[in-house]
């Protein structure tokens, strides 16, 4: 066994399941039951006693969370990393145990569902070993081996391997005579009840990945220049164009895996822009908006767009900073407001008709600037260029967004499958090359 240099200074510890899996077939009672028995494996082999405590005050807080979850150890979706726990200590996060909510957590003591899920009990016993001060062991028979080895049997009958028993005994001593952790355990789940309810029918809830939209069809929901890069948002994905005009990838990234704090169930982003005064990033969805510091939403959001001085229910469809005067413009269908980022309020005398910008239709998808100092208006499959501070689009526009921004071969083609030479002699390369 391997010990960390951390240990709890007490043997009576509290635990609480603060959040539960969002899509697991396991009920909350069932989860608590599994967690209870996973901790009992350790208390059966040492002087430790566990009690279910209230949230936040508990020593060991259990969370099911995904992707970036504010502890510097992001999860990676199905497969790969499954869970982690923090060693004992005085820090609020010490002892806390996080499970990747994107795994298919199952109860499978008899390994009937081979490869079709991850047995929560087996992983929980391992993680609580960390929460109590054990590190990874290279001993194959140890529960502290870092790799998932599959189910370990019935929770109420489970006994730690000798390697782990010796490790936990070294940290907290042998189980005291006369003390039975079951009697000091929580009221729920009752230890005398049948240990675990039957596993519900297998129903996969996660596909391998979200179906991604076709960039060559354009029709972007929102487009924004953020820190010199242009982000093209469509449904729940985005593409990212770097200052050298290359796309980071031809494959889109998932918005919720990068921008942390938007609602999970949003359908599309209506508008995005980077604020000129403080570089914060503002997202509009429906009649609400979110303000981000980098990729993390600020506390207190969403707020209604009426907080910006807009009429209640306003749905901003395009937002941009006009480089000519540094002002922010918020557009809804055929009208716009000029917004003062410093004051946090729209200026008096608005809305006015979008017809100020000549040559573009109303109800734009979005407007953004490029690093050439020009502003680009996007709608459906086309875009218009406005040079410098002109309010009339340049001659020969509109042009094809798919061809000029997404490097597609024709205005109505699907994504090209083979690499090709892009605009200005730039080489476009496929996924892994």
């Amino acid at each position: 066994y391997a010990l960390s240099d951390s240990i709890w200074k007490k043997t009576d510890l509290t635990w609480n399941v603060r959040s539960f899996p969002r899509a697991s077939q396991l009920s909350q009672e069932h989860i608590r039951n599994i967690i209870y028995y996973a901790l009992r494996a350790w208390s059966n082999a040492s002087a430790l006693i566990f009690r279910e405590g209230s949230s936040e005050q508990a020593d060991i807080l259990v969370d099911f969370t995904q992707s970036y979850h504010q502890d510097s150890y992001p999860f990676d979706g199905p497969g790969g990393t499954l869970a982690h726990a923090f060693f004992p200590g005085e820090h609020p996060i010490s002892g806390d145990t996080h499970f990747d909510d994107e795994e298919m957590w199952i109860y499978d003591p008899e390994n009937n569902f081979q490869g079709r899920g991850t047995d929560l009990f087996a992983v929980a016993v391992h993680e609580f070993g960390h929460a109590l001060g054990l590190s990874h062991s290279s001993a194959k028979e140890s529960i502290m081996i870092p790799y998932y080895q599959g189910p370990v049997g019935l929770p109420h009958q489970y006994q730690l391997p000798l390697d782990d028993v010796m490790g936990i005994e070294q940290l907290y001593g042998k189980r005291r005579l006369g003390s039975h952790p079951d009697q000091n355990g929580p009221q729920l789940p009752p230890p005398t009840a049948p240990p675990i309810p039957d596993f519900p029918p297998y129903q996969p809830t996660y596909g391998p990945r979200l179906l991604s939209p076709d960039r060559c069809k354009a029709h972007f929901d929102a487009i924004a220049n953020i820190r010199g890069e242009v982000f093209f948002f469509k449904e729940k994905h985005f593409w990212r164009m770097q200052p050298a005009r290359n796309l980071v990838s031809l494959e889109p990234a998932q918005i919720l895996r990068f921008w942390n704090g938007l609602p999970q169930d949003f359908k599309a982003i209506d508008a995005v822009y980077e604020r000129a005064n403080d570089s914060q990033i503002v997202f509009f969805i429906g009649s609400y908006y979110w303000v981000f510091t980098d990729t993390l939403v600020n506390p207190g959001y969403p707020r209604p767009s009426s907080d910006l001085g807009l009429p209640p229910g306003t749905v901003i469809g395009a937002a941009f900073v006009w480089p000519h005067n540094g002002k922010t413009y918020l557009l809804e269908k055929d009208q716009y407001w000029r917004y003062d980022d410093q004051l946090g309020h729209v200026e008096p005398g608005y809305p006015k008709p979008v017809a100020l910008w000549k040559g573009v239709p109303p109800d734009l998808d979005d407007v953004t600037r490029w690093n050439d100092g020009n502003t680009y208006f996007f709608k459906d499959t086309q875009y218009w260029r406005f040079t410098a501070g002109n309010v009339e689009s340049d001659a020969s526009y509109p042009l094809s967004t798919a061809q000029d921004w997404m490097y597609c071969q024709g205005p109505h083609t699907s994504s090209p499958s083979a690499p090709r030479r892009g605009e200005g002699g730039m080489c476009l390369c496929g996924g892994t090359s």
Partner: protein
Amino acid sequence: ARSSSTHEFNKGLEWLTRYGYLPQPDPRAARLQTREELASAIKTMQRFAGLPTTGELDKKTLDMMNKPRCSLPDIIGTSELMRRRRRRR
């Protein structure tokens, strides 16, 4: 084929770094791994995982790297919250 093996090599490097077998990159200095250092890291990982210690990113090693696992490093250096001293009985 070269592209695929380069991809696997990079993934292997990233894996070895993430789980503590190779040092985290120092943002203040560019650093190039020596071949010996890399082989040594792979051997340590192989010993830890109970694999033959070839010192190469062979199929068994890559398969093991693809197995689902706990996200705590096996060898923990100076990570603020998870640091530990590795002790053996």
